[in-house]
């Protein structure tokens, strides 16, 4: 090879530079994690302080090391990578901790007895959450039946018919306001509404459904509107060019194309309200027996059940606490199952993702 073609000569300089070994990041972070465990196990230093100091020290270490070997740009890259990894761990830690706590404390009582027994005439051990499971499913189901048509039709009006009119602006504003309503206010709204007709002190499952639907509607409207927005305009135009009336274009072309996204939005709304306690407490109340009829009498729900089992345990309190944890775990499992169903629907009709 002649001198003229040797790497690093000529106008291009060299493309390759000194680099840290491949394992540099892993070793620095692994060392920090190991030191954290050792420190927490064998010293009296506050664990939070230790974690913060170790994270800062390890990030500074990789920054300075890379800075001396690789140069400024790579050092910034490694520093940012490590900071983001720590931020991710910080965000995930509560989730893992919560899931672990609920599963480890809840799986002791979560058995067949738990899901097919109510709390009727139960004192002390035994009993179950059958009435609460059915209550949650029925109340949330009725809320979904109310909120989904209202939400989707509102979104269709806003995106397909509203144009730039004042009504559209007003609706958009109030939907934004509804997003911020505290759930207890939604509960009090339903309570006040029904008190007008049935007098104070009335408790019905459907009251809870109306309170929850107030919370769901803005989520469904917003997500459906976003999905309608990403349906390509060319699809609407080519349907119009076939001489199809507008309402049929929307129901037969636009909505099916956006279906996967709309289902996701509905699932988010359900997940948002299925664990609500406060609005159900003031509207539906609590009861120990199974009640399938949302139009008559009190109903139990998993969140309220959990709350009361923990707040007013029996003597001894352990069976109540076990039931509370098992009910919380049941709620999480219901949400997971619903999410799984939504994923299946998306895969079946997922046309927008494919584009």
């Amino acid at each position, binding site marked *: 090879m002649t001198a003229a073609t040797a790497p690093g000569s000529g106008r291009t300089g060299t493309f390759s530079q000194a680099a840290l070994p491949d394992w540099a990041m892993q070793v620095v972070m692994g060392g920090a994690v190991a030191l954290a465990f050792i420190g927490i196990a064998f010293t009296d230093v506050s664990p939070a302080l230790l974690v913060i100091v170790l994270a800062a020290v390890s990030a500074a270490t990789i920054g300075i090391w890379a800075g001396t070997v690789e140069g400024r740009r790579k050092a910034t890259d490694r520093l940012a990578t490590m900071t983001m990894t720590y931020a991710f761990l910080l965000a995930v830690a509560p989730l893992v901790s919560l899931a672990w706590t609920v599963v480890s404390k809840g799986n002791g009582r979560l058995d067949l007895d738990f899901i097919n027994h109510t709390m009727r005439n139960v004192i002390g051990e035994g009993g179950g959450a059958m009435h609460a499971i059915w209550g949650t499913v029925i109340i949330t189901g009725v809320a979904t039946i109310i909120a989904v048509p209202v939400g989707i039709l509102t979104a269709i009006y806003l995106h397909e018919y509203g*144009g*730039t009119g004042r009504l559209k602006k007003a609706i958009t504003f109030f939907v934004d306001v509804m997003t911020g309503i505290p759930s207890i206010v939604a509960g009090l709204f339903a309570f006040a509404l029904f008190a007008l007709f049935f007098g104070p002190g009335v408790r019905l499952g459907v009251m809870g459904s109306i309170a929850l639907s107030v919370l769901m509607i803005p989520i469904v409207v917003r997500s459906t509107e976003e999905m309608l927005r990403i349906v*390509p305009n*060319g*699809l*609407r*135009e*080519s*349907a*119009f*060019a*076939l*001489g*199809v*009336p507008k309402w*049929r*274009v929307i129901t*037969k*072309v636009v909505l*099916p*194309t956006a*279906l996967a996204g709309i289902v996701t939005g509905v699932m988010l709304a359900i997940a948002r309200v299925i664990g609500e306690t406060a609005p159900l407490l003031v509207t539906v109340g609590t009861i120990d027996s199974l009640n399938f009829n949302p139009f008559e009498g009190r109903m139990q729900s998993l969140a309220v059940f959990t709350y009361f089992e923990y707040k007013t345990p029996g003597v001894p309190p352990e069976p109540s606490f076990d039931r509370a944890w098992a009910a919380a775990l049941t709620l999480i499992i219901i949400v997971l199952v619903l999410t799984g169903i939504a994923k299946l629907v998306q895969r079946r*009709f997922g*046309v*927008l993702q*494919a*584009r």
Partner: protein
Amino acid sequence: MPSETEFEKVVDGVGEHSPLDLIERPTKPAERQVTEVASTIEVTNLDIYYGAFHAVADVNMTIPPNAATALIGSSGCGKSTFLRAINRMHELTATARAEGSIVMDGQDIYAPGVDPVEVRSKIGMVFQQPNPFPTMSVYDNVAAGLKLNNRKIKKAELDEIVEKSLRGAHLWNEVKDRLNRSGMDLSGGQQQRLCIARAIAVEPAVLLMDEPASALDPISTLAIEELISELKHRFTIVIVTHNMQQATRASDYTAFFNIEQSGQPGRMVEMDRTEKIFSNPTHQATEDYVSGRFG
């Protein structure tokens, strides 16, 4: 520029397996024959506005039946806007409005009481980007115009219409084994022919095409152009194109649109037989544009 047949000979001669084998083509050159009499469109004093902006000014033209009319001109001169006004598609833009008259078969499509939905079922449209409905199969895409209008049609009759439309769009042999697959699985050129099949399935009298081949490769473009010369037997065709070779190959008449300067409305400079526009146009601006001396 070689004539259409010479052009084919050149491309066909590439080898034993020419890329042209991949597409369905008419077995013999299209003859001037009319199988279904289509409609004449008379445009009188047509002005189109977007809000306060005057987009197209004072268009007068007669679009002859059973022929292909090309609209050429630089970008922004209003030819696509004019095309969309022919079947009132411009009304989908909230601020757009048109003044003047477009008479088809003795009826002014801008007259009060005229339903744009009915107008569009008689004047079909094909767009620049192929856009099959992604939730529907190939079959359902072709049947969409009939199904979405909720006309009660027997399955056997619908089968027949779908096959006839796909044959009319030279797509039948390529898709007959996968009618139930998604239209999105087809190639770009096939998708565009599927869109043409979808448009002709509702039996319009006029077919508007907005740069139908500009997103396609040369082979698919040739397929579309050959298709246009066949479709003339059944439809009146108006095609917007930026490709002047395409205008000479595929059209019988050509209208040249021009814009004096930006902000001014676009106007139709002249319309004549395509040979005349490209060999001996009346106006200097047309001559400059078709010979590439423009701007």
